């Protein structure tokens, strides 16, 4: 028999929450800076503050009450959700094939128009980037906040090679990957000795430096105007008309992404992949077994960068135009969020997270202004709910099997 409904406690709790919300909301919601010809002045919106306080108070009360009411039951909502997600993990292999099947036939499905395929292409780029970053962050445990730099190098490499030397996309693709990898290697050498959070901030700093250089080295990169007129890929000489090109590009990125996936899965089963995971688990133990942590970190870093380079080249060719605007820190944050939210090391998790974080906002373009706010909020909320990621259980790469 459940205890009596703690009305008084919940009411006080809600009241406190409401008061704090009101205080937090007062300066920024209650007032608005108005810039007019006479200069800066203030407008008031105290009703917004009242609403904020009411919503927070009401929400706290409702949540508290719900928790109390359901505490007697066997399955609480969070528990039910947990079971659901766990069952997702159980059907993982089949789910993977199902997703591939859907992806392969997407352009031919009844509801797919050019818009849908276009958005799916965008999601696939992020999936590919997520799988690439997964090698660095998920497997090797390196906190890379500057992944967008490798992406940018790949994009600009292709753009410059194609517009200046008229090389074909297929030739430039491996070159872009190579250049990105080399770039990561040169940058990585000095900084990969750093511990955890320091590595994060340094990679962030490097990525920002790259962006500033791209912005200011006008003679090479075109500065803020970027590079335009980037040629689209052809298939054995066949040039596609814009309508078919969307579908063609979709299949190109699908192929690239799947290749990345196979590559990453393969690596995981090889000594290098296991060494990366061991490095993530305990660096000192690695040293005691004769593994050189610096070499491992560099190899993880460069491999991830190579994948980013491929993705960058594709991005450049799809857009036809690139500028430093597309390579800000937010991109690194999105890709990192996709990896962490998906559950590090989980390939399907990355797909789900990309659909969630990139696909949904794309579909709700009308709410453009709230898109980033929702994105940031989603990052915080998902971390609070499932800090290890949505699908985070680990499968061993090699088994002894039943006895």
């Amino acid at each position, binding site marked *: 028999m459940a205890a009596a409904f703690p009305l008084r406690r919940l009411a006080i709790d809600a009241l406190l929450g409401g008061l704090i919300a009101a205080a937090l909301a007062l300066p920024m919601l209650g007032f608005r800076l108005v810039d007019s010809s006479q200069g800066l002045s203030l407008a008031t919106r105290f009703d917004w503050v009242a609403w904020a306080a009411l919503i927070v108070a009401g929400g706290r009360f409702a949540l508290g009450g719900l928790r109390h009411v359901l505490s007697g039951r066997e399955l609480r909502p969070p528990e039910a959700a947990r079971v659901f997600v766990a069952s997702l993990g159980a059907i993982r292999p089949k789910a993977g094939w199902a997703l591939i099947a859907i992806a392969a036939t997407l352009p031919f499905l009844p509801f797919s128009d050019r818009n849908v395929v276009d958005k799916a292409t965008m999601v696939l780029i992020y999936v590919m980037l997520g799988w690439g970053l997964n090698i660095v962050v998920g497997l090797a445990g390196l906190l890379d906040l500057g992944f967008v730099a490798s992406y940018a190098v790949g994009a600009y490499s292709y753009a410059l090679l194609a517009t200046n030397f008229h090389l074909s996309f297929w030739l430039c693709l491996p070159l872009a990957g190579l250049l990105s990898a080399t770039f990561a290697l040169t940058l990585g050498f000095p900084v990969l000795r750093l511990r955890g959070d320091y590595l994060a901030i340094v990679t962030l700093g490097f990525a920002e430096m790259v962006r500033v250089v791209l912005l200011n080295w006008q003679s090479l990169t075109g500065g803020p105007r970027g590079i335009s007129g980037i040629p689209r890929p052809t298939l054995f000489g066949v040039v596609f008309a814009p309508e078919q090109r969307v579908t063609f590009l979709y299949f190109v990125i699908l192929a690239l992404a799947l290749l990345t996936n196979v*590559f990453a899965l*393969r*690596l995981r*089963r*090889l*000594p*290098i992949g*296991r*060494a990366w*995971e*061991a490095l993530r*688990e*305990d660096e*000192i*133990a*690695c*040293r*005691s*077994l*004769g*593994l*050189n*942590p610096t070499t491992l970190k560099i190899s993880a870093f460069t491999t991830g960068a190579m994948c980013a380079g491929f993705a960058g080249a594709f991005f450049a060719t799809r857009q036809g135009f690139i500028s430093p605007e597309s390579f800000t820190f937010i991109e690194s944050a999105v890709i990192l969020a996709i990896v962490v939210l998906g559950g590090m090391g989980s390939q399907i998790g990355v797909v789900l997270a990309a659909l969630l974080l990139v696909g949904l906002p794309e579909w709700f373009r009308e709410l453009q202004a709230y898109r980033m706010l929702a994105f940031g909020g989603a990052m915080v909320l998902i971390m609070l709910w499932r800090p290890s990621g949505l699908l985070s259980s*680990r499968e*061993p*790469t*090699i*088994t*002894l*099997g039943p*006895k």
Partner: protein
Amino acid sequence: MTRVLLEVDHVSMRFGGLFAVNDLSFSATDKAITAVIGPNGAGKTTLFNCITGFYRPQTGKLRLHHPTGAMALERMADYNIARHGRVARTFQNIRLFQRMSVLENLIVAQHKTLMRASLFSIAGLLGLARYSQAEKRAVEKARHWLDKVALTAHADEEAGSLPYGSQRRLEIARAMCTDPLLLCLDEPAAGLNPRESADLNRLLIDIRDQEGIGLLLIEHDMSVVMGISDHVVVLDYGKKIAEGPPNQVRRDPAVIRAYLGEEEGEELPPEVAPDLKDLG
């Protein structure tokens, strides 16, 4: 015919003003178990960290005698000592790869061989037989050691989920998978019950006799030390105070004093003496 494997030659390790290891010299031979004992804070783990390259001693030499020649450990990095010096170790606080399986822990230990066989992953990516065969051999070696430490049934479980005693055994098995010449064990019996300690003794003697390598052992558990060591070195405040066969060392007055304090042979204060004499 045993030969000297490790020579510790006037090694000193200082932290700030404190000498953790003070002008220490001794030798460890192969085909033997050498125990390093002493009260807490005597510098034993610091010594280990110097030998295995995690610390760099300020003075002294650490000579490892290989079949191919001598190596100066004091100038080598930790992973090189493990890789080229073939010195393996276990840790006081157990450092397993927690979220990897038992088997994977042992496979990672064979990284060097496997990397070479996979031609830095190329052969592996292409699925060449050369690599898959090497992987099979690695699994066999792992199985051999799993059987030795009785963990075969748990091979596919997460290392972190094993009970404490099993984790300790796994760490030893993992160290042995690197084919070492010298195995350094930091308090392998800590937290083990008497039955597990006896199993450990058997395992270590087995390793000494079957593999013919040298074992260097830090231990507090005297049943292990006295039961299986061939040679004992006693440290106190970073200095060596005794060295020799276990039976000789246990009777050494300096050793007794270090462990029990100054009570033996010390004069009692005059005002207390009469009262204590009545107690007998």
